[in-house]
């Protein structure tokens, strides 16, 4: 009997760490806060986001023409974001491919505590083709309850209801294909 109890204690303590993240994930989906950005100057970015407003005018992140949106919180200064940049470019390419016949999946980046110059430098250094915006005063980072960079926040935009966050990945993802699959699984029509 004594050994059975000890077995149980060992088994439970070994697997406890795996139960905690599962509990955290159960909190999803949660409402996507209202975030306002400026219509970008780059016409390709404007078209990608499905925006028609004048450059420099405000738009809501909820108006982005996508079924599923990923918001990447990054910083030009963050070595992990730098390391992750090629994988994020790969994710973007896969998103474009899958959006041709499946749900429309898009991505934007928010440069946390970065100036526009720093965001542009990050974009140029890693040849990032999707739109990046500066979140210099960290307003959006705070609204999204950001904890660090990089963070990837998956949102379901078009389900007839209020846009919701369905996925939060703190740190880099191991595989862009797996991450995209999980994103579509959680962000697609329910």
């Amino acid at each position, binding site marked *: 009997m004594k*050994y059975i109890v000890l077995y149980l204690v060992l088994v439970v303590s070994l697997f406890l760490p795996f139960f905690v993240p599962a509990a955290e994930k159960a909190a999803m989906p949660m409402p996507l806060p209202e975030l306002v950005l400026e219509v970008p100057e780059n016409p390709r970015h404007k078209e990608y986001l499905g925006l028609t407003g004048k450059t420099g005018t405000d738009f809501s992140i909820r108006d982005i023409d996508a079924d599923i949106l990923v918001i990447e919180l990054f910083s030009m200064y963050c070595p992990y974001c730098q390391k992750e940049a090629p994988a994020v470019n790969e994710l973007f390419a896969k998103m474009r491919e899958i959006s041709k016949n499946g749900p429309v999946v898009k991505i934007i980046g928010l440069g946390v505590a970065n*100036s526009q110059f720093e965001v542009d430098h990050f974009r140029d250094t890693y040849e990032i083709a999707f739109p990046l915006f500066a979140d210099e005063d960290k307003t959006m980072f705070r609204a999204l309850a950001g904890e660090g960079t990089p963070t990837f926040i998956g949102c379901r935009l078009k389900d007839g209801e209020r846009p919701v966050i369905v996925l939060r990945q703190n*740190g880099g993802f191991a595989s862009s294909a797996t991450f995209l699959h999980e994103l579509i699984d959680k962000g697609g029509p329910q």
Partner: protein
Amino acid sequence: MRQKIFLAVIGIFLDLAVVVGNGLAANDTLHDSIYNPGHLKPVDSSLNVAVGEPAPDFSLPSVAGREVTLSQYRGKKKVVLSFVPAAWTPVCSDQWPGYNISRKYFEEHNAILLGITVDNIPTLHAWVRQMGSLWFDVLSDFWPHGRVADAYGVLRSDGTAERALFFIDTEGVIRDIVVSDINVRPPLEEVVAKLAAMP
């Protein structure tokens, strides 16, 4: 028999614990290792040098294992000295990774960058490794403690350095000085503008 099974389970448990532990270590991030000292007094020293004056010469050991002397660049390169307060602290731990992808701006203006802290070499070695490989020299002003930082007037009363940049021309003359609020990273565009403004 029961005892043997119990010992076997203990063995498996310990093996798994090592595997899980190693996995966590591999996923450990720079951010997880950072000590946050909280909000600090923005500036806690007085400059001992001024724009237009010769930059005090120094020789300091680098993490790469060589001795770097400021005057070795005279007549060859402009030099930017980047003092940061301490290893393993916020802001400092991303300021240099930012400069690490900004090499082109320094090269465009025939400048090199020297990073300096008052930490010792083993500490800097671990910190720099965690940041990734840096293209510029990282120098230790550990002993005599903060002597170079003090010569420039950026040694704080707690023995750390200010977050400061000194822009030195090819003649060894200080052309610009930026002593930032220690809690705030100077924007990259400011560094680039001051590089461009150096004669």
